[in-house]
């Protein structure tokens, strides 16, 4: 099983997580462009963990549904939660002085994208990419 779990605590872990995700995507036979899409989405989500929650975890795993193969990423933290998910998903909106492209960008790079966030409890983001 190609599943990988990594803990995210600092910026070094961001690089390691996206490298790991790219390796899994490569082994699963994703195209070069899809590998970059997945690695970039991981980079955005992992940075959010470091920025807002300080620590969390990322799981990258293959899945198969309806005969279709794909890759699932689950990014979880026990941080402050996202007060307004809709606002956080808006292009250009940032509370950290960034470009505000992380969450909306990551969503566009993946095929499915779900945010479960509770104030004071944490945030879990589950995203999938189907193999073309």
């Amino acid at each position, binding site marked *: 099983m190609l599943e990988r779990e990594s803990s995210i605590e600092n*910026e*070094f872990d*961001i*690089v390691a997580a*996206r*490298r790991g995700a*790219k390796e899994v995507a490569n082994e699963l036979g994703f195209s*070069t*462009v899809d*590998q*970059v*899409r997945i*690695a*970039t989405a991981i*980079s*955005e989500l992992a*940075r959010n963990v470091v920025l807002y929650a300080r620590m969390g975890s990322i799981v990258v795993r293959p899945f198969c549904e309806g005969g279709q193969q794909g890759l699932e990423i689950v990014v979880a933290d026990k941080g402050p939660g996202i007060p307004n998910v809709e606002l956080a998903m808006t*292009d250009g909106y940032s509370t950290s002085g*960034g*470009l505000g*492209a*992380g969450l*909306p*960008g*990551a969503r*566009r*790079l993946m095929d499915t994208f779900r945010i479960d966030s509770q104030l004071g409890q944490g945030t879990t983001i589950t995203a999938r990419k189907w193999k073309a």
Partner: protein
Amino acid sequence: MHQQVPILKIDDFWIASVQGSLHDQDVIEFKQALLSKIMQPKSRGLIIDLTVLDVVDSFVTKTLIDIRGLAKLMGIPVIIAGMSPAVAITLVEMGLSLEGVDTALNLQKGLDKLRNAGKER
């Protein structure tokens, strides 16, 4: 592990070829190193070569835009060269079009562009 990006000079053009994966602190240090180079009196331009960079996320993009903006204020043209097709596609999909940033297909074309821009002045 710190990854230092070598910043080389050809004629009066600065060339930085980013190797491998940079983490955030590297990116910040890279930006500062570039600015200290291009403020030297004879500087005429800067090329940032991304040929071997496999992931460009919003943080790196923001830094590139910042560098370009600061260099512009100093009168130094900046060219981003060598972006791979996969990275370009990813950035466009994310909505990061690097508006206003000058680009070139590769290092050679970037250098040609800077040289020609210098002649027109």
